[in-house]
C-alpha cells in the first residue's frame, strides 16, 4: 500500500457514462488483485474534499499498468472524466481484500451489475489465465445493465453473457437470472453447488443472496460503502453482518462471504 502521483495513460469512454482510466503502476507499489481497490485524490481544492474509492478492473504487471472503470455520478467522477493522459493522478493503494481463488473443480460464475463490472472483468481475466494451474473451470462472466447505451466497449472473454433489463442488448432479464442459467449449464448437481462472485447494486445483491440460499450455493461479494479514510482508521465504512456485528468494507472487505452480510441493512 502506497500513496503516489502517477501518470494517466488512458482515459477512454466505454459507454454513455462509463469510462476507463489506466495509470502507470510501479511494481513496488503492491499488486492490485481483483476485488481490491484504490482511492484517488481528485482535486487540489476542498471540493471534493475526500478521496474516492474505485475497484481495480485490471492490472498488467509486465507493462506496469493498472485500470479502473467508473461511472460519472457526481463532482469527483466528473472531474476524473476530464483528466487527460499525461497528467498525474494522486492514487493510494492497493487496498482491501481480493476475491479468493475458486476451489479446484469448480466453475466460477462472475456476476456484475451496472458499474459493479470492474472487479469481475478483472477476475474473469485472472481466473481464466490461471484456470489450468488452479484446476478450476474457465469462468463465465455475466454482466447486466439497465439499457444498451450503458453496455461498455470492452473486449470480454469468450462465452461472456450480456443482459439488459429492457432487452435492448443481450438477453432480456437480470444478471442474477442469467447467472443462474449459466451455473445450471455447468456440470453441477446437488452435490456440487455453484460458486458466484458478485458486485452490483443492492437489489441485485439481495436477489443473488436469495437465489444462492435456495441453491445452497456460496458466493463472494464485493461491497460498496461510504468511505472516508479507505485504510481502516475511521470506521465509517461499516457493513452489517448477519451475526449483528460490523466489519469494515475497506479493511476486512470489500470482498466478503456474501452469505454473511445483512443485505437488508445496506
Amino acid at each position, binding site marked *: *500500500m*502506497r*500513496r503516489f502521483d502517477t501518470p494517466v495513460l488512458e482515459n477512454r469512454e466505454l459507454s454513455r457514462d462509463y469510462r476507463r482510466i489506466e495509470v502507470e503502476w510501479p511494481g513496488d507499489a503492491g499488486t492490485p488483485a481483483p476485488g481490491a481497490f484504490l482511492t484517488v*485524490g481528485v482535486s487540489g481544492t*476542498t*471540493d*471534493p*474534499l*475526500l*478521496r474516492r474509492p474505485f475497484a481495480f478492473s485490471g492490472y498488467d504487471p509486465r507493462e506496469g499498468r493498472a485500470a479502473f472503470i467508473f461511472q460519472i455520478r457526481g463532482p469527483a467522477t466528473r472531474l476524473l472524466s476530464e483528466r487527460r493522459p499525461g497528467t498525474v493522478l494522486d492514487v*493510494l493503494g492497493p487496498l482491501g481484500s481480493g476475491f479468493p481463488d475458486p476451489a479446484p473443480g469448480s466453475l466460477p460464475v462472475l456476476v456484475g451489475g451496472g458499474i459493479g463490472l470492474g472487479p469481475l472483468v478483472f477476475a474473469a481475466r485472472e481466473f481464466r489465465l490461471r484456470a489450468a494451474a488452479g484446476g478450476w473451470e474457465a469462468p463465465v462472466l455475466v454482466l447486466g445493465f439497465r439499457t444498451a447505451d450503458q453496455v461498455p466497449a470492452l473486449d470480454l472473454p469468450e462465452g461472456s453473457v450480456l443482459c439488459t433489463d429492457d432487452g435492448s442488448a443481450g438477453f432480456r432479464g437480470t444478471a442474477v437470472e442469467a447467472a443462474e442459467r449459466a451455473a445450471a449449464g455447468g456440470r453441477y448437481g446437488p452435490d456440487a453447488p455453484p460458486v458466484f462472485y458478485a458486485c452490483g447494486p443492492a437489489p441485485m445483491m439481495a436477489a443473488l443472496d436469495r437465489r444462492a440460499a435456495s441453491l445452497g450455493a456460496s458466493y463472494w461479494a464485493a461491497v460498496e*460503502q*461510504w*468511505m*472516508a*479514510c*479507505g*485504510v*481502516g*482508521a*475511521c*470506521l*465509517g*465504512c*461499516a*457493513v*452489517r453482518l448477519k451475526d*449483528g*456485528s*460490523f466489519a469494515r468494507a475497506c*479493511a476486512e472487505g470489500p470482498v466478503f462471504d456474501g452469505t454473511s452480510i445483512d443485505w437488508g*441493512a*445496506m
Partner: protein
Amino acid sequence: MNPDLSVRIGNLVLPNPVGVASGTFGYGSEYESLMDVDALGALYTKAVTPEPRPGNEVPRIVETPSGMLNSIGLANPGLEAFVRDKLPELRRRRCPVLVNVAGASEDDYLRVLERLEPEDGISGYEINVSCPNVSHGGLAFGTDPALVERLTARLKRSLRSARPLIVKLSPNVTDIAEIARAAESGGADAVSCINTLVGMVIDVDRRRPRLARGTGGLSGPAIRPVGVACAFRVSRAVAIPVVGIGGILEARDALEYLLAGARAVQVGTGNFRDPGTAARVLEGIRDWMVRNGASRMEDIPGMLDA
C-alpha cells in the same frame, strides 16, 4: 537557526506541535506503511469506553461542502480489548500516545483511567466530553460547566501517574470559554478544541437524512474558522495550554491556530485526504518560524497583531 518545536503540556513534552486527532487515525498501525507514525508530535487514539461499542447504523459518513459529517458512534472494542490488543503496539511507538476517553457516566471515565493508569506506553489522556454522536454521555457532559469541573476534578484526583489530562471541548455550546474555565478549575492540564459541530444533510429525492442516525458531526476545512475562533477565545480565558483542532490541511491552517493562541494542533479529516498531512504541516510550521524569527512555539501567540 533551527527553531525548538517542542511543546510542554503538564509534565509531558511533545517533540513537536502536530498530532493526529482522535477517531481519524485508528490506533496508528493503519497508517504505518503510508507515513512515519513515530515522527508525529502526538497520536490521539480512537475513543476508549469501558464496554465494547459496535457503533451506529450505516451510512455513517457523508461529504459536505469542504467537510464531512460522521456518526461513527464511538465504535471501539472496549477497555479490556484495547489493553489486550491495541496497547502492545502503541507501547512500541516512539511518539507520545494519548488515549481518548469516553463514557456514558462519570464512573465510566473513571473506570477507563483507573484501568489504564498502571499500564505503560501511555503519555496522557484526552477526555472526550464532546462527542455529538451518542445519546448518553459525551456532549451531555461537555455542555455543562459544573459537570465538566466535577468530572475533571474527580479524574484528576484518581491519577497516580504524572500523565497530563486534556479536556476536549465541544463547539456546540453557548460559551466555550466558560467550559474551558471549568476544566481548568477542575485541574485539567490542557484543553483541546474543537470536536465536531452537529450537522445534518437531507437527501431531497428520497426525503430522508443521508446519515442513518439523522445528524452527525461536521469536520474538515468548513469548521476551521469556528475552531480558530474557539482557540482564540479559550486561550484568552485560561492559562493552561490549548490544543487547536479543526480543518487543518496545510501549515498555514495550523499557524492560524497557533497565532490565535494554541500551543499545539491536531490533524483530523486531513489525514483522510492525504496521510502525509501532519508531516507536511510540521515542515511548513518550521519554515514559517525560521522566516518569521520565532525560535520557540511559545513565541508564536504573541506575534498575532490583534
